[in-house]
């Protein structure tokens, strides 16, 4: 009885020492985190960041609007007098609704709409997030290296 108790105590102490050994070993391992604002991770090739657009590639087929599960995209166009050329009047993106699923990128027949590599997207005004004009070339200018 006493002997088993002593044995239990020793097993307990041994298990604690083993745990301490594990943490001690890890003390000398290389850090898994990065010194973030100074060193940044490269985004993967298929990374889905903010929605972006090559305006001249768009053929106004409305596929992205139809597939978008959250209705985050707004598109409207008007047809010119010659009944052939169409012009985009509004193409905005609501970053608040977007769920970054990438369906629009997948479905686009001309690869006009795509998801870029930006992940540090913050705005000073909440309203700016709701209507990001995809036609503008300066939509992500405020982001570091935000040139599409």
């Amino acid at each position, binding site marked *: 009885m006493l002997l088993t108790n002593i044995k239990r105590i020793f097993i307990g102490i041994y298990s604690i020492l083993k745990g301490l050994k594990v943490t001690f070993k890890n003390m000398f391992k290389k850090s898994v985190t990065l010194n973030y604002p100074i060193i940044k991770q490269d985004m993967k090739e298929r990374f889905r960041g903010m929605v972006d657009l090559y305006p001249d590639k768009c053929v106004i087929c*409305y596929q992205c*609007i*139809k597939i*978008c599960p*959250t*209705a985050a*995209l*707004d*598109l*409207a*166009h008007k047809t010119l007098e010659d009944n052939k050329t169409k012009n985009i009047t*509004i193409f905005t993106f609501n970053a608040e*609704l977007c769920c970054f699923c990438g369906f629009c990128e997948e479905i686009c027949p001309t690869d006009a709409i795509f998801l870029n590599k930006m992940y540090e997207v913050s705005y000073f005004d909440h309203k700016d997030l709701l209507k990001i004009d995809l036609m503008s070339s300066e939509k992500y200018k405020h982001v570091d290296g935000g040139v599409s």
Partner: protein
Amino acid sequence: MQNSDLALQIKNKFPSIVLDEQPNFLVVPKTALLDVACFLKSELGFETCHCLTAVDRKDKMEVVYHLYSFSNHFMLTLKVIISLDDLTVESVSSLWRSADWLEREVFDLFGIRFLNHPDLRRIMNPDNWTDHPLRKDFKREDFIPRPVTLGLKG
């Protein structure tokens, strides 16, 4: 085990019950639900009420029970059809405790009252709500099924 075997066994046990036998499910009259459920659990070995839900068919409501028998590897779909005038059904939570919260959920989202349920309160929505969101006729001013974007309107 097959649906038809089960239907036969239930019919033998309760000759007075009108059982609607479909290829994928059995429809049990509302009045006989508790008896049939009791029989299924105690004699046919359906240990678990795996899922309990309801379907709003606009003109009627279906309460759907998925009962599972571990020994026979068989999932039984049991349905009870209730009319919209009388949205009540007998609770099976005394047989399967798992039905307790699932019934509360159905009560919350469909407004079907489960009789003799130990604690029938709303589970997801606030207690002071009066709506039942999963009904097909659910309407609220702030509820938009799926926002329509600008371009598709015209």
